[in-house]
């Protein structure tokens, strides 16, 4: 595989992570547990979709051939999506949504901290622009983990359940795909394996503060980065892409 293709796949992977999680979070709009948190999770959704747009625009330029941010977001099937499995998981209850956001934001924060130093100036600029948002997502979700974990008996039980449910999707975040290995060699990104220690330390310290149990590192799910997804992604794309598929080029 050529270096350009690695960069295209990696940019898509970053964009798909942001879009799919942004879309999942947007499903809360109008359904948040209280008005203020409805607005908070919708803001995070907007931040992520904004990041996705910047990344898709870059990916479309890399691909060429009339490809656009919209064609990449709306006209690819599940197998062409390179997001990690974590972000496509169902919202579940508020605890599940918080756990998913916390795991992802922790990973994204350490990744973007490296990406700002990328030899690829475009990715570096996008990371620079996004990292302030990500730092806030991390802070916001960490506080909810602690609040619910160290809260009532009910909230603790549900928070623990959410952490246990999503734990098997953690491993994929710091397991390198072939395009990540190639690009780490050329200084475009960092091998996510290198982030593992910082990532685990942060996650464990917040879980400890929340008086939650840290699940054992057993078997981990994988496949998303290669386009092999859980069934949840198909339903998400069906809803997200319906309009563009049914009315190609529709605008308003």
């Amino acid at each position: 595989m050529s270096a350009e293709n690695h960069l295209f796949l990696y940019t898509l992977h970053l964009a798909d992570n942001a879009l799919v999680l942004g879309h999942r979070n947007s499903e809360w709009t109008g359904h948040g547990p209280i008005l203020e948190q409805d607005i908070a999770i919708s803001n995070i959704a907007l931040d992520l979709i904004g990041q996705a747009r910047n990344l898709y625009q870059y990916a479309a330029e890399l691909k060429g051939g009339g490809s656009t941010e919209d064609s990449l977001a709306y006209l690819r099937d599940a197998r062409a999506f390179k997001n990690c499995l974590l972000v496509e998981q169902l919202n579940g209850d508020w605890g599940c949504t918080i756990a998913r956001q916390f795991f992802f934001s922790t990973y994204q924060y350490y990744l973007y901290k490296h990406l700002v130093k990328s030899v690829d100036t475009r990715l570096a600029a996008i990371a620079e622009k996004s990292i302030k948002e990500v730092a806030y997502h991390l802070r916001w979700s960490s506080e909810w983990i602690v609040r619910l974990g160290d809260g009532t008996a009910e909230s603790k039980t549900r928070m623990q359940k959410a952490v246990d449910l999503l734990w098997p999707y953690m491993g994929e975040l710091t397991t390198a795909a072939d395009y990540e290995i190639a690009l780490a060699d050329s200084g475009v990104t960092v091998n996510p394996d290198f982030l593992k220690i910082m990532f685990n330390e942060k996650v464990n310290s917040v879980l400890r503060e929340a008086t939650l149990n840290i699940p054992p590192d057993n078997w981990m799910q994988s496949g998303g980065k290669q386009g092999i997804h859980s069934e949840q992604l198909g339903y998400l794309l069906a809803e997200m892409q319906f309009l563009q598929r049914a009315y190609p080029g529709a605008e308003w």
Partner: protein
Amino acid sequence: MMEKQDWPLWEVFIRSRQGLDHKHVGSLHAADAQMAIENARDVYTRRMEGVSIWVAESKNIHASSPDESESLFEPANDKVYRHPTFYDLPDQLKHM
């Protein structure tokens, strides 16, 4: 979801720029001060309205009663000498 006990109400004050006062912008619900600040950030500063946030639990705000407005405020009406309106200001002075 909060049938049993609603989160308390907080009043939010935002300083829109350095050098200006904090101004009351509205209220919101939150479990504690920390969450109130976070919520205020999301609800009231999405369009870069602020550089600083204050929150105070609404129950701690003590207000004057509208019934007392006559005795509180109207006596000032006929004391024009309390207003600095009898000075000639040089043209160079702006924003007075």
